[in-house]
């Protein structure tokens, strides 16, 4: 596994600057293969988007309409039913759903943000300083990438129960901060995007090491940091096992665990079914927005993570 995978400059990820098909050179692609390609992509677009579309449509229906009307299209009363559904979603059980959303956002942004900064500092040091035990340390962290998070959940529960911190905010928050993959990405990025000359120059100007990192290096590493943050944000947002094991109090749940408990009660309280569907749709909106708006960073980061 090569650690210092070559990094491509960010511009190459922009489609406009790359690979505009050079027309008139080489054989033109036949109409047949063009249509075949479009057909394949078209069919799979339906596969990927219909479930999400169905979720949108279903969250605009009353329970009766959900059972009786055409499943993949809106009903005449969809608009007001949808608004009513969202209203009920946010007020049901004393407003527990917005609480869950808020919990998820806090777990994911605060722990993810903190984790990103710690990963950046650690990755930077591993890339830019030579010290005893550096490679050993890096390999241990890298080994952490291969340790499945689910394998940690149970021992973490046992440890947290020793210090009586299970079923608290910290039980989910603290373990979420650590991201060995973030350190790995940050090291690769730091070694390729922070030139030694700049660090030297800062030293000559009398800047301390820590100040150099927070004023100069962190800016050069910022595309990587966005990527690391997004990775960690998604990992925490999607994490299910840790909160499932740790938490009993509903008001501490992240939205995934909350919807899971609602869905397990659907057979006793059928009205929850509408709320589960509306809640599911509402809960993916923040992530969809974050993904679509920060796409460029995603791709450059994914490229950087590639092994050589």
């Amino acid at each position: 596994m090569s650690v210092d995978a070559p990094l491509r400059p960010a511009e190459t990820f922009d489609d406009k600057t790359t690979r505009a098909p050079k027309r008139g050179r080489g054989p033109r692609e036949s109409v047949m293969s063009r249509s075949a390609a479009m057909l394949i992509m078209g069919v799979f677009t339906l596969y990927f988007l219909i479930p999400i579309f169905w979720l949108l449509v279903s969250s605009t229906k009353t329970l009766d309409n959900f059972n009786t009307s055409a499943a993949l299209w809106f009903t005449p009363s969809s608009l007001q039913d949808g608004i009513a559904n969202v209203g009920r979603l946010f007020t049901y059980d004393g407003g527990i759903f917005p609480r869950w959303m808020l919990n998820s956002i806090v777990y994911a942004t605060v722990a993810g943000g903190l984790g990103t900064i710690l990963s950046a500092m650690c990755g930077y040091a591993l890339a830019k300083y030579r010290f005893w035990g550096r490679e050993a340390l890096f390999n241990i962290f890298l080994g952490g990438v291969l340790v499945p998070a689910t394998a940690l959940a149970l021992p973490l529960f046992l440890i947290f129960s020793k210090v009586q911190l299970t079923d608290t905010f910290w039980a989910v928050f603290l373990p979420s901060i650590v991201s060995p993959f973030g350190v790995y990405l940050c090291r690769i990025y730091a070694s390729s995007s922070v030139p030694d000359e700049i660090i030297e120059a800062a030293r000559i100007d009398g800047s301390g090491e820590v100040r150099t990192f927070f004023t100069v290096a962190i800016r050069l590493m910022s595309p990587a940091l966005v990527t690391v943050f997004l990775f960690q944000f998604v990992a925490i947002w999607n994490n299910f096992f840790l909160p499932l094991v740790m938490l009993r109090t509903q008001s501490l749940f992240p939205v995934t665990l909350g919807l899971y408990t609602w869905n397990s009660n659907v057979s006793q309280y059928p009205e929850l079914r509408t709320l589960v569907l509306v809640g599911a749709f509402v809960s993916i909106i923040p992530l969809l927005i974050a993904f679509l708006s920060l796409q460029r960073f995603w791709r450059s980061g994914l490229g950087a993570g590639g092994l050589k």
Partner: protein
Amino acid sequence: MTVITSRRRAAKADAQGPKPKGGFRYRKAVAIFVVPFAVLFVAFYLVPILYAVYQSLLKIQRQGTFGAPTQVFGGLSQYVLVFQDSVFWSSILRVLAFGIVQVPVMLALALLFALLLDSPLLRGKRFFRLAFFAPYAVPGVIAAIMWGYLYSPSLSPFKFVTGNVDLLGGGTILWAIANVVTWVYVGYNMLIIYSSLLAIPTEIYEAARLDGASQFRIAIAIKIPLVVPAIILTAVFSVIGTLQLLTEPLVFRQFTSSISSTFTPNMLVYSTSSVPNFNLAAAFSVVLAVATFILSIGFLRLTQRKADQ
């Protein structure tokens, strides 16, 4: 003391000409950078792993039938139980069967989409990229709930399928789960492979194009060999994910009775720990983590050796 000696050593190194980059001079800075992460890593990665190993070496002993239970050192007795446990092995076999089918299918699709996105055959690439990646924004729990309804014989919009084939039945449920996992992760893997395709300099296949090679031929002979490292990366992460399968089957238990509480290794860990039998659950966890580790390292080695030849 150590500070003084290290300073002396650094001074010595300075005097001897080429000084080490970084070096002992920046020990304090290195400590400030590394220690915060390292402490949390030890607390929430290393300690839990060691604690799980420790727990797995204990067993519960009772004085007589009604005596108070006490934890005593049990050596490898939990591991003997693990290796004799047919439920554990059938759950392992189940996820292996899942992985052998699902991972290649998912990666083949991801590679196909990435190659199409990279070829001049498509229009509206931006749209396809976004549409295919969108499911990755759906958390596993939500995706499973959604597909649970889509599979349901009475509520699905595809009743012409689900009314005739019981997708949630014992024979098909594993593949119904495979579909959910594929749906979520194809776009993500596609993007990893696609960004590695974008990194290939165009000149490499410009010559082949001028010689009249078709897009298909260029893909097979030039592009695919160059993105093998990206495919290996996605494969390793998929293998790890497969062995950890938990969320989707756990959610599907709410839709069907054909998933037992020990359907996957992680579900077995969860149900064993809720008995509660933490020692046995810890042993399951350890065996599972070691197996994951060996499998992913082994896969990396195997593919790297092939690439070297």
